[in-house]
């Protein structure tokens, strides 16, 4: 008799546990649910040259040391092509200037060496590029 009662009690408790488990959440181990948000990055190019930048080539190295710019029309002799790189906070992370000597037929200007190159770590934060001709 005692044995039967004990068996029924165990089954009852066991059943309650099963029902509890299948109808509730959050009572177990830590639930590590990292929300998946697709990463988005934007690079904004500010062309303030007036000559029309057709190609912006930042090259395939991890850092930026010699960006090349191709313009629709040639830049006048003696002018400077300036490039400025900014991160998302608007902080200048790289800059360079190239004086145009092969002109005006050469529409591709490679800025090298740069006054301040963009390192690999800085390139990961690159958000905006401004190009001017002075």
């Amino acid at each position, binding site marked *: 008799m005692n044995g039967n009662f*004990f*068996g029924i009690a*165990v089954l009852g*408790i*066991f059943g309650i*546990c099963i029902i509890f*488990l*299948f*109808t*509730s*959440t959050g*009572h*177990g*181990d*830590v*639930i590590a*649910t990292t*929300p998946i*948000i*697709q*990463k*988005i*990055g*934007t*690079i*904004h*190019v*500010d*062309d303030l040259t007036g000559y*029309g*930048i*057709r*190609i*912006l*080539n*930042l*090259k*395939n190295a*991890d850092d930026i040391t010699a960006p090349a710019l191709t313009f*629709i029309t040639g830049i006048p002799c003696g002018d400077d092509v300036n490039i400025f790189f900014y991160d*998302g906070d608007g902080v200048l992370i790289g800059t360079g200037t190239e004086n145009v000597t092969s002109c005006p037929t050469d529409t591709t200007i490679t800025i090298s060496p740069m006054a301040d190159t963009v390192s690999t770590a800085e*390139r*990961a*934060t690159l958000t905006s590029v401004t190009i001017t001709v002075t």
Partner: protein
Amino acid sequence: MKIILLIGIMILSLATVGYGASLNSTPIVNKIGATDNQSISRPDMNVQSVTLRVTGGGNVDRVTVVIENQDTINAHAYRVCAFLIAGAETSDTLGSDADCNDTPVAAIKGAAGDSQSAVINTTIDITTPTNLSDWDITVQEIS
């Protein structure tokens, strides 16, 4: 003996997850001021080059973007969008995804023996060819 069995089941139940009902865990984003405290990080990639195709009329009708996956663990595909601004003129309606293109999967950077390349390119035809001026290239990691 039965008590020990029961205690064992309870320990197993409380130490594991996934045996209960569906886990509806909606991420809770704390709001600060008028904006959501939601940080969307930049994909681990580099835009290597952007080439604009300029028509005879001086409008840009096509943009080619070269991207390198910088992730050394996972391969990724990207959705690349181009948006050109020439004064009040824009190449597409803001918020539209017409001038977007999905890239093939870019391989893991530096993966040995991988037949795929970490460098991929995509070409976007511009809905409304626009005079050359400022431009935005947006890269979204979609896988």
